[in-house]
């Protein structure tokens, strides 16, 4: 019985590490393909954006959240529902701008960087920049979805 249980947790762990390891392989490959960190950052953002516009549908289908009435609610859903669902973490929301149109998400334990060591010659690399693109793509898409629903 316990062997079965061990197998289950082992599977889950491997499954989670698969994404982290694949992401690492991708960043490594991009650093080889592009000559400077800035281009890698842009590429990660672009790829993240493409993922985000598709991920939002998966999120809406699986999470059952209703419409957000303001940006603060949006921030909450991102941190407490989306990040929890996809990365198993809940970043903290801080740094609200006075106008309430800008905030920061702080990831204490970023699963993307498990087992990762950046060499010294990549000081401008934003390793997790894919996440920025994903957020950007998902949020742009949801605005469009809202407009479509309204019409």
């Amino acid at each position, binding site marked *: 019985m316990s062997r079965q249980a061990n197998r289950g947790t082992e599977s889950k762990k491997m499954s989670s590490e698969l994404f982290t390891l694949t992401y690492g392989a991708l960043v490594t490959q991009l650093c080889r*393909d592009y000559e400077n960190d800035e281009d890698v950052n842009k590429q990660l953002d672009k790829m993240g954006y493409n993922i985000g516009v598709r991920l939002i549908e*998966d999120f809406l289908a699986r999470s059952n959240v209703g419409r957000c009435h303001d940006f603060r609610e949006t921030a909450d859903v991102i941190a407490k529902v989306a990040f929890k669902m996809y990365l198993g973490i809940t970043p903290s929301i801080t740094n609200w701008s006075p106008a309430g149109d800008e905030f920061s998400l702080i990831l204490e334990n970023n699963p993307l960087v498990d087992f990762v060591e950046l060499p010294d010659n990549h000081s401008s690399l934003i390793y997790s920049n894919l996440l920025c693109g994903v957020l950007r793509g998902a949020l742009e898409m949801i605005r469009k979805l809202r407009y479509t629903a309204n019409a």
Partner: protein
Amino acid sequence: MADAALFEFLHTEMVAELWAQDPDPGPGVSAGPRGEGGRAAGQKMSLSVLEGMGFRVGQALGERLPRETLAFREELDVLKFLCKDVWAAVFQKQMDSLRTNHQGTYVLQDHSFPLLIRMASGLQYLEEVPKFLAFTCGLLRGTLSTLGIKSLVTASVAALPACKFQVVIQRS
């Protein structure tokens, strides 16, 4: 714990991205040096890049396995482990069948390969399929490598989403 869907999304984007980097006009368009020969070279490069990435990930995954799983009695046990435990961990299902000629060739069959399911079923997009299999072939080859087995892994599709992986053990 990263959700399983994330790997699928990332994989799809990687295939799109690594393919797009070869700005090829398509077959039959140019008769110059970038004609048929150019396309073949571009294709090979992208496939091998994807396969190489899969290999590194497979190696790393293999290294993270607990000690007792690494003590296999024979080669067939390793392949069974690949079909059950590794496949379940990576794709949330087991391989549907494993066959061998007992002379170092194994055919692993998945009737419903998750990375192909979203694409189509049947014969549509058959030409596009190799790009979606390259990473996984590398992953199998990489995990086998960590488990002490050198191999060549290829994949073929007769009709989506069913897929066959052929593992040929390389004896040095």
